[in-house]
């Protein structure tokens, strides 16, 4: 009976593996990885604040393009942004309330960042 030499089997297996892997890689395409940044904005009493302008400002040299779209919180005070990997300063702005900035790091291991924000009335 013929007994295979396992020391010599690994190479063809590796070759086949690389062949299929490279096929998969070259077929891969799509949208750059992004991190979801979401949360709820409330007033000092904890009530949801609709109509708050929320905008991520890129910081440093690693952040990706941010479309200059105006995202406002909905009736439940909720907002959702999808940002490329990088560092951002999230701005929260509503007339009659103090402006707030919060730093966010959208790093590779994260899929979602939750920012629950409380805005104070302007004095």
């Amino acid at each position, binding site marked *: 009976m013929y007994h295979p030499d396992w020391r010599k089997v690994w190479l*063809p297996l590796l070759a086949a593996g690389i062949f299929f892997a490279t*096929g998969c890689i070259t077929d891969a395409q799509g949208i750059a990885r992004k991190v979801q940044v979401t949360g709820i904005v409330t007033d000092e009493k904890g009530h949801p604040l609709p109509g708050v302008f929320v905008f991520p400002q890129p910081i440093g040299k690693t952040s990706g393009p941010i479309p200059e779209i*105006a995202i406002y919180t909905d009736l439940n005070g909720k907002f959702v942004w999808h940002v490329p990997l990088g560092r951002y300063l999230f701005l929260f702005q509503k007339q009659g309330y103090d402006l707030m900035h919060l730093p966010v790091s959208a790093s590779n291991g994260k899929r979602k960042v939750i920012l629950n924000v409380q805005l104070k009335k302007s004095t």
Partner: protein
Amino acid sequence: LYLFFYLFIILHVIEKSDKGDLIMPNPFGFRSTLLTVSLLCLTVIPLAQASKLPIAIAAKQSPDAPVSNNGAPLQPGTSEAVVRVQNGAYVKGHRGLNEKAEKRVAPTAPRSKSHDTSHMGTESIIGEDTRTQVNDTTAYPYSAIVQIESDIGGCTGWLIGPHTVATAGHCVYDPNQHKWASYARVYPGRNGDELPYGSANAQVLYSVVGWTQNGDSNYDYGAIKLDSDIGNDAGWFGYRWQTGSMDGIWENISGYPGDKTYGTQWEDRDQIRQTAPRKLFYANDTYGGQSGSPVYEVDSHSDCDFCAIAIHTSGVYSGSSYNRGTRITEAVFENFNRWKNQ
């Protein structure tokens, strides 16, 4: 790469005897079977793939291939209004029923703030904020600039025909959630609560494959077909493409930023600082909500009148000191002609 694997596998499987002769393995054994299967994998499958390649290439659409939210086939664009010039082409704008127009003021010197890099890489206000409010939004071309409200977010657009608005691709299609805006409403020349031309609703949304399938910011542009010919009153922009550098062209950006009183129009003037094949870079101050704004020339260009050369898309990022917009290339120009003809 495949040839390398062939040689390596063959040399690895074939053995040498003690005398140095080559010994083939048992033809029905494990190693021979493995060798045969490996060679088959490395020849038949690549050949099969190669035979499909021309079909795949043909099926793969150009990133500038237009798409719409209803999937309906598009009529070809009209070439009647296109004026060909030596290094490009333009389509003339229309001032609408209102003959008032912004007085052209030729800029005299570059803005000193362009040299201030203290804010570089942090926001789309570059240096000091020099945006000014447009008080008379019924004067052309401000009348032809529209605020866009949709479930994707607040944006700006600009009329390119009686019932067609040009804007950024991300204002009509969100590639992160793979969805078109479910509704969009536009307000030409809006000034706070004043709606001098009323509003119009989107009937069809357009963009291109490069944006909807790949989210490639080089193809971040689109358009909206409206349910009324609101542009006949509000007017519309001309637009043009040209080959070569556009550096030094004086331009203006006017739109609806989200950090100002809701629905007010703000503008800022600068010049093209860098030209890329599909992007233009400038130091005009902009903000969230101004995506889709026209980047239009302040100096008259032939008969084009107020002539757009790019669609504003994003602010400063990745250490660049300039904001940027999608350049109107020949392909973008042809798509605008096509969309306005639907």
